[in-house]
């Protein structure tokens, strides 16, 4: 993501990602299937990963932006989307489209999904689980409603996009 510092994948960040084994263990494991030379190269490459990661990431990001700027979903875009669509979504207005310089534009799939996730997390914060006051069925009904609103947003933003393309 643009503007984000790279966070290494360590156990406390992504607990399901295992730590890299010790060099000797790794060498033994890789040697079994790929031979000594390839195993040695792989083991030595590990130290270069941290140095190479920003370069690879940057190249990948530039490549995607070159294909289509919309393919890269930025933190800034997330802030804009949340500001624009979250409150309306709570009022049963799905994120179908938005006004840009006087014209209506379809929202992107990334926008719908991310605003949807924020709305869902918001819902979980409000109703952390079934209680005497908020039964599980009520929370489930709200989540189902959110799901339907997001599906509607996907369908109708696509309709808007097709319409604009063929106008």
């Amino acid at each position, binding site marked *: 993501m643009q503007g984000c510092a790279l966070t290494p994948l360590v156990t406390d960040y992504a607990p399901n990602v295992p730590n890299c084994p010790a060099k000797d263990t790794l060498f033994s494991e890789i040697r079994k299937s790929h031979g000594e030379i390839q195993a040695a190269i792989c083991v030595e490459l590990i130290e270069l990963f941290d140095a190479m990661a920003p370069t690879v990431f940057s190249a990948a990001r530039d490549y995607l932006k070159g294909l289509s700027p919309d393919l890269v979903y930025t933190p800034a875009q997330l802030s804009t989307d949340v500001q624009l669509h979250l*409150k*309306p979504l709570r*009022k*049963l*207005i*799905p994120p*179908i*489209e938005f006004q840009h310089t006087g014209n*209506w534009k*379809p929202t992107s799939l990334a926008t719908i999904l991310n605003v949807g996730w924020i709305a869902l997390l918001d819902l979980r914060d409000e109703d952390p689980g079934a209680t005497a006051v908020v039964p599980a069925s009520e929370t489930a009904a709200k989540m189902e*409603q959110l799901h*339907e*609103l997001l*599906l*509607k947003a996907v*369908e*109708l*933003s696509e*309709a*808007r996009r*097709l*319409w604009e393309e063929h106008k």
Partner: protein
Amino acid sequence: MSALSTEAIVNRLNSPDLETRLVVSPLLDVAGQAKPGQSSIDVRLGFDFCLVTASSIGAISEFDGLTQPRLLKELYRRHYVPFGRSLVIHPHQFMLAQTLEYLRLPADLMAYVVGRSTWGRLGLIVATAVGIHPGFAGSLTLELRNLGEAPITLYPGQTIAQLFFHQVIDQNGNPSKTAAKNTQYVGTVDMVPQRLSSELTHNVLEKLVRKHR
């Protein structure tokens, strides 16, 4: 009860206040669908259709087990028709369709959906349950019936109906601030009917039906 002019409708569509904003989205051609000087906006035919599979069931009876939502769903066969494809409604055929637009009414507006006269002259009836309550949110379900003599090909995206809006006032004559949150179709986007009667009506009638069986 006064109807909103097209200009007033457009103002409501652009209201920055979410509580009073009217949502009809997406309006693919604002100038064409909300013509100045009129008092309605046109809505388009959507992509989802429900065809009745009458032969697979007996009579629709509220007290023979067919009122459960699961069973009511069995009355219909769903069809998704994308832009560019079509569906034919034959003479005397009935089907459910949806508006392409998603609609959300604020607490102080109600609406009527009415078929466009051009379709009416071809024999196509578009809506029979025409009233839309304040607070409604969802795509409108249209009850289509071809009363004409010739089959009619329907294309999603065609302007098929029009919405007329009226302001709802409370007992003091002020714009209403209380939308009907618990009515049957608020916040729904599904076409299939949910129930025929309120719980009380259903229970009382059921007792009477049992008594006379």
